[in-house]
């Protein structure tokens, strides 16, 4: 056990610097990872989709997909994994850290951009750098998918109106032959300029040992 322990300790250290989590948090996440992957080394999509609590979530598919998206690993790769290891898992989770009080303004901005990128990637499924109308429609459809029998047109109407709004806010002087292709990342950022994403998009990661608490 000695060798693997130092090995994992070394890996943890690496992860800590890369993601900013504390040792306790990483340990907890590793425990959870092992739980989800049924003690395998890698996690597959089925493992995540089988989580009971996620069943009611309308955007379950997108969330699961985000874990397997290579773009979220910040290594300038595209495409998606079939299975992910613990590092990738933690990397994705690190997008949800809250800002620490000691962060400088630039660090906060960087974190904000990071989080927004994460969100953007979730919407931009074909990876062309913009969220087209079709993709946006899909987003809204997914959001409404769990809410009973909604007409397809409803979702479409909402998505269209939203798109229109972005278009007219960001490109107010479109000529008659212009065509708004899709929401680019800058426009996406613009949508959130009022929202403090760095604090809003976070999940509390536990520091205490939660092994005894849940199954």
């Amino acid at each position, binding site marked *: 056990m000695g060798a693997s322990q130092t090995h994992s300790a070394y890996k943890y250290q690496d992860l800590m610097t890369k993601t900013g989590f504390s040792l306790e948090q990483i340990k907890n996440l590793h425990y959870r990872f092992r739980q989800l992957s049924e003690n395998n080394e890698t996690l597959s999509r089925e493992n995540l989709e089988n989580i009971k609590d996620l069943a009611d979530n309308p955007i379950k598919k997108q969330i699961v997909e985000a874990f397997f998206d290579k773009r979220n690993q910040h290594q300038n790769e595209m495409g998606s994994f079939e299975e992910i290891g613990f590092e990738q898992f933690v990397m994705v989770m690190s997008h949800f850290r809250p800002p620490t009080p000691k962060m400088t303004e630039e660090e906060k901005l960087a974190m904000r951009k990071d989080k927004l990128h994460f969100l953007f990637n979730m919407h931009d499924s074909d990876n062309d750098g913009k969220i087209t109308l079709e993709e946006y429609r899909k987003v809204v459809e997914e959001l409404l998918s769990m809410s*009973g029998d909604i007409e397809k047109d409803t979702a479409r109407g909402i998505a269209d109106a939203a798109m229109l709004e972005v278009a007219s806010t960001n490109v107010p002087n479109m000529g008659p032959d212009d065509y708004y292709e899709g929401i680019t990342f800058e426009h996406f950022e613009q949508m959130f300029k009022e929202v403090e994403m760095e604090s809003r998009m976070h999940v509390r990661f536990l520091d205490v040992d939660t092994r005894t608490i849940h199954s």
Partner: protein
Amino acid sequence: MAHLLILWPMSGSISLSGPRLTGFLCVLLVVSAHASRDAVSGNNETWGSPARATQGDPHHQNSSTTHRKAFPVLSFNYDHVKTPFEISLWILLALLMKLGFHIIPRVSSIVLESCLLIVVGLLIGGIIKAIKQTAPVLDSKLFFLYLLPPIILDAGYFLPIRPFTENMGTILVFAVVGTLWNAAFIGGMMYGVCQIEGAQLGHVDLLSCLLFGAIISAVDPVAVLAVFEEIHINELLYILVFGESLLNDAVTVVLYHLFEEFSHAGIVTVGDAFLGVVCFFVVSLGGVMVGTIYGILGAFTSRFTSHTRVIEPLFVFLYSYMAYLSAEVFHLSGIMSLIACGVTMRPYVEANISHKSYTTIKYFLKMWSSVSETLIFIFLGVSTVAGPHAWNWTFVIFTVILCLVSRVLGVMGLTYIINKFRIVKLTKKDQFIVAYGGLRGAIAFSLGFLLTNNEMKNMFLTAIITVIFFTVFVQGMTIRPLVELLAVKKKEESKTSINEEIHTQFLDHLLTGIEDICGHYGHHHWKDKYDAYVKRWLIVGERSTEPQLISFYNKMEMKQAMMLVESGSAAKLPTLMSAATLQNIQQKGVPSRRAIPSISKSREEEIRKILRANLQKTRQKLYSYRRHDLVMDPFEDNVSEIRFRRQRAEMEKRMSHYLTVPANRQETPSVRKVCFEPENKVYTYDDSESPRGRAAQPSPRLPDAISLLSKSPQRPNQTSALRAKGSTELRAKAPDEQEEQDQVKLSRCFSDPGPNEEEEEDGSFLS
């Protein structure tokens, strides 16, 4: 009575300008008050007996007259209506004051309304005293049972929940710890002051001082509302100060009763102190529990009111009032109970009740709270003049100073601790505003007034009134320029952006999902579960599953339409109108506009009914916790529906402009839609189409969401009436059949549901 008679000729010559009117009414009021007392005191028998004689036994020979009296054509019996008459007169006076102030614009921009009202109260009190009558004092029972609840209910019902719950920790710390600190500090220091030789205050013991501290330490919601309403500060600060003023009621109640009991008993033991702490928890949690129970009852009741829409608002009011009274029975915190009731009830009630009831509730709450607040301030002024006073320079001055000092210290100290736990820190500016906004008001006065058997009562009352005056006048009036000076963030106009809504929801689900993956149940998880289960119980029918997004979207569309209605001029186009559109339209020249025929009356009525039905379904979640916002709320029922539909046509046309691939883009239908015709002209019916109009459309019964028709794809030619002229062109080219149908469907989105959509609930209510 002679006074009254003299006044009448004067009235003819007085022009009805604000101050004169108010002055006139002051005098009128005073005189009638005088008259009423006359009637009570001496003249009763004289006036009353002729009336009695006619009612009573005509043969009764009580009076000395032997001849038969003539039938009194006109008799005077003021006694009969005295109480309601005076009450109405007071309220009328208060409202006319309010009216008067707003007629004089210059004054109302400099001086706070509450200050003016207090001054008016002072004047009235002075007048009444000058004519040697006893002025009415702000009776505590009147205050706590009748004047305070409407204000609190209004505040609680429209409390912005999200910022409130997000900052709950901070608010609680300020409310509980802050108030305790204030009470202890002021009480203790005042005791020290009282020990100073030469102040003649040696008879004030520690417990009395502590009691006084408890009374004066609480920030007052009425005063805070009155002041903050006018300065439009950003939401965070508003909710911090206001939330604190609401939640500190529990502390105040406990401390007050505690010290009052003890000051009679004389000594305090440790056991008593411990009981005090227990009492605090009981009072606050008990109050919340009572409120929640009534709130749930109210929500549950509203499920069944679909057949008796007229009494729906009453349920809301009565359940809330009962919550307050029930809490007061057990000496629990009535304010917290009322808030809890309003907050609990609101989402479910709003989903269940009709639109008209919602409007009624909103307006009634605002109305009552407005009246209450006005009356409170006027009575404060009157009581100041009328009440017994015992002025003691040392005591009063030190009280004022200590209040300020303790507030500042308390806020600073607590913020230092709180900032360690907050993600969004409170800056120095924020702290200053929070400290400066800690106003005292009528609650302190009423509590002081309730003191019994306390020989220092008069002195306390004087000090309390001085502090109130100081905070309201000095702090209240200077806070506005200070806010400007410090460039504190103001409340931003909430741009209801559909995008924001979409992404907020998305984010919520995302965070819940991540929490689930992480395996621990954060508050997103619990909120989700709660929403899923509770809603099923408390919301009627299918509305429980109506997604927020759709109702939001409806609301937004409504608002767009409203804006068009209200503005009626191109200058105030809503955001969805882009300059390019206009340009495009105008570039193409103004083609020959087809003469637009007017719709037949019956059609219009049909459409109106349909649209009203559509409007009914929208739950407009207005954050109207500011009273002044009501004025600008355009969501009235007499909407120009046609405008509304035109707006939709507009949107749809722009959709096609922007969002379709260029090859498929339709020629933008011409012009007419951009010009804003006056309201009585009509409208976009294209007579070339067959008059099937609405009646022929076999529309299925629509869900609560956007009224859509799921048309079968075989009918792309059938356009809505909105499409009018452009539609012919639209129909002609259909390069992409699917896209075309989509466009048509899109326009469908915005048109009405079919005529089957009867609004039965509205039947009895049709205005």
